[in-house]
């Protein structure tokens, strides 16, 4: 596999933004509304602040450990067994996130766009596109993402603006929705939506430049946090509680409400375009990252041939839940369970490595 990945700051920022925003804005807000009611926007701000703190903590060790990812550090710390264990955890996290997003996307496509088509056909075409995207390589993916993703951000911005006539300020009251405890205590369980920050750590060895990583990571958290807050605020202002907790795809519901004059009412067509491309890029990027993890764990010279197998495996795993309800419940539990690993491994492993090196009296780098 070609591991000569070259990403500039803009590409890395938009790539990380895609990984965070795809889940956050399309399928995740539903969980926020279930937790906090129409105070989801407050929870979104709170979670973005926590994610920023977590990111800064993980970046704080950069000067001690250099551009080694947690996989490289675990090998230095505990040789092959630890590296394998960490690789498996990382792979599991990626698999959980990718498969649940993939299945949620496919089921939603079936509900909204292709109600009469068998989901297996949709899966085959989706899987083939993702596999081809991943085969094109990371540089191609990040370049296409850098071209497309600003359009996605523009879509989110225009959606929020076009909906202004439907906003009702009373809908976001009572201000603390289902309660302060739910927002600030139970809400921590929803931090799994920032689990994708793990991908930034996995890409460390391929970027090298600390400034690029710091700036891109920070900007990605800010962009995704702002998008999530805006979508939650727009939805909360438009849909009153408790109906705001019912809908499957919040941006789709919002795009159906747009009415800009007599002849511009089907904004959902634009949503469907943005939504599909974002998911294709999201899945292809994660398939590639998963291959990098396997390549690193098993010291493979090239993992390119793994791509079709990984896509097939992800597709099969994504079809384990028998229904959408089971999928949503199971994925939420699994994501919540894996979130501490995803968020804190990039802090704990470098911390242990730094302490161990300091104890030895060596320069950690």
């Amino acid at each position, binding site marked *: 596999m070609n591991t000569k990945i070259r990403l500039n700051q803009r590409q890395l920022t938009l790539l990380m933004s895609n990984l965070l925003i795809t889940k956050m804005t399309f399928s995740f807000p539903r969980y926020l509304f279930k937790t906090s*009611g129409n105070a989801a926007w407050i929870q979104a701000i709170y979670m973005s602040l926590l994610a920023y703190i977590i990111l800064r903590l993980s970046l704080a060790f950069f000067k001690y450990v250099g551009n080694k990812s947690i996989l490289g550090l675990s090998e230095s710390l505990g040789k092959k067994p630890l590296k394998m264990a960490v690789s498996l955890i990382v792979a599991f996290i990626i698999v959980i996130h990718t498969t649940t997003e993939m299945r949620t996307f496919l089921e939603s496509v079936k*509900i*909204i*766009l*292709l*109600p*009469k*088509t068998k989901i297996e*056909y*949709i899966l085959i*075409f989706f899987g*083939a*596109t993702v596999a*081809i995207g991943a*085969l*094109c390589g990371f540089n191609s993916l990040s370049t296409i993402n850098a071209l497309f993703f600003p359009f996605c951000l523009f879509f989110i911005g225009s959606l929020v603006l076009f909906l202004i006539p439907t906003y*009702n300020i*009373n*809908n976001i*009251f*009572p*201000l*603390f*929705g*289902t*309660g*302060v405890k739910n927002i600030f205590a139970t809400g921590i369980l929803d931090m799994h939506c920032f689990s994708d920050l793990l991908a930034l750590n996995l890409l460390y060895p391929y970027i090298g430049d600390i400034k690029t990583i710091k700036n891109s990571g920070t900007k990605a958290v800010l962009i995704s946090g702002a998008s999530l807050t805006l979508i939650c605020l727009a939805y909360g202002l438009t*849909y*009153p*509680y408790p*109906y705001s907790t*019912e809908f499957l795809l919040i941006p789709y519901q919002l795009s*159906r*409400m747009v*009415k800009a004059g*007599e002849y511009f*009412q089907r904004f959902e067509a634009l949503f469907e375009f943005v939504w599909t491309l974002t998911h294709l890029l999201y899945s292809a990027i994660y398939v590639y990252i998963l291959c990098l993890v396997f390549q690193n764990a098993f010291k493979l010279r090239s993992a390119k041939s793994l791509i079709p197998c990984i896509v097939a495996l992800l597709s099969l795993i994504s079809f384990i839940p028998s229904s959408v309800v089971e999928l949503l419940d199971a994925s939420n539990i699994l994501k919540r369970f894996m979130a501490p690993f995803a968020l804190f491994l990039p802090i704990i492993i470098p911390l242990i490595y730094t302490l161990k090196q300091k104890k030895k009296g060596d320069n950690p780098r």
Partner: protein
Amino acid sequence: MKYLKIAFILLSFSLLFGCSDAEEPDSLGYVVAIGIDKAEKEEAKYDITLQFANPVTISGGASQEGGKGGKDSIKNITVTAPSIYSAVNVANHVVSKVFTLAHTKVVVFSEEIAKAGIEDILETIGRSSDIRPNTYFTVCKSSAKDFLESVNPETEVNPTRYYTMLFENEFSGFIPQTKSQDFYFFANSGEKNTVLPLSSKAEKVGTYNFSDSGYQYKLEDAQAGEIPSEKTEIQVMGMAIFDMDKYIGEMGDIETEIYNLLTGQYKSSYVTYYFSPTPDDPITVLQQQNKRPKITVDTSGDIPKISLNVYVEADFTSSTPEMAVEQHLDEFSNEAGEDLKREIESFLSKTKEMKADIVGFGSYAKRNFIDQKTFEDYKWKEKYPSCQIDVNVDFQVRRTGLVVRSEK
């Protein structure tokens, strides 16, 4: 690279993928309105009338004259079914079209159905990706089937445009601007009651009753079907009031105009007032609401206290020849404001009698609570009938038309 090229060619076939769900436009039956009546047999549940567009008439077919409106532009089919989609399924087997609800503009409920509750229909509409959230609901005083069969969109070629013009007319305050989404959101809400436009076949040929009120033609409130009309067509006027999903009462056109003023949905209309120096001469103004009402609710005590400030602007469109009202603008504004205030107070006491907070004061009351549970514990709907409402009307005549007369 070779494999990539092959993959690219294969992938390009996926562009044809959407064709698997494609429907030819001429094979579709575009349902523009749905009527729901109670079925004769209770277990059959509903008689559902699907009114669909007749594209041959709308487009003009092979003729060179272009499309025609009127009764021929629409067709109706009535089937007995337990839900809307079951009716679509049956209709697909009766008419040689595949029915789609993507262009449905109106759902008409018969009075009987509305009184029994429409929660199951709401469930279908909330769940469906076909039916749009800005579809109109209306309660029909006659049967929904009769109503739809009386529709004669003479002024429009496109039947959906006909319904849009009928229900979305910003220059008439006589119907509430409630869309299906608004009804769906608040049907089971603890903060407010919902309303829907009233509609009917215009069968009743009668005369108006006159009242003592100095507001709006001195007429009693009229509802759909009560306006004298020589033609037997449809009328949409007034509103049906709901408690949860059940129809509990109705209000006439003038009360609906007041409702629109209080909810801030009112845009403008021509309104007639009577000035005390010339009590028999109507003065008509173009009334506009350029500023939403200011509502504050004090929930600190057991009895909620509501402060309501309504801002109305008016321009003279006709005046009395007896005197130059332009020279008495303050007196006229005060009297008109008092008339309007009296109407508003009468409207609000009626809503209290009906135990229905249709204006949505509860939504403003929510602002005083920290979270949803404390608001729910306050039991707003139970407290609303005993609330104190302080009404203030700021009525300003801004312009006098093209004439500014002096005192004779």
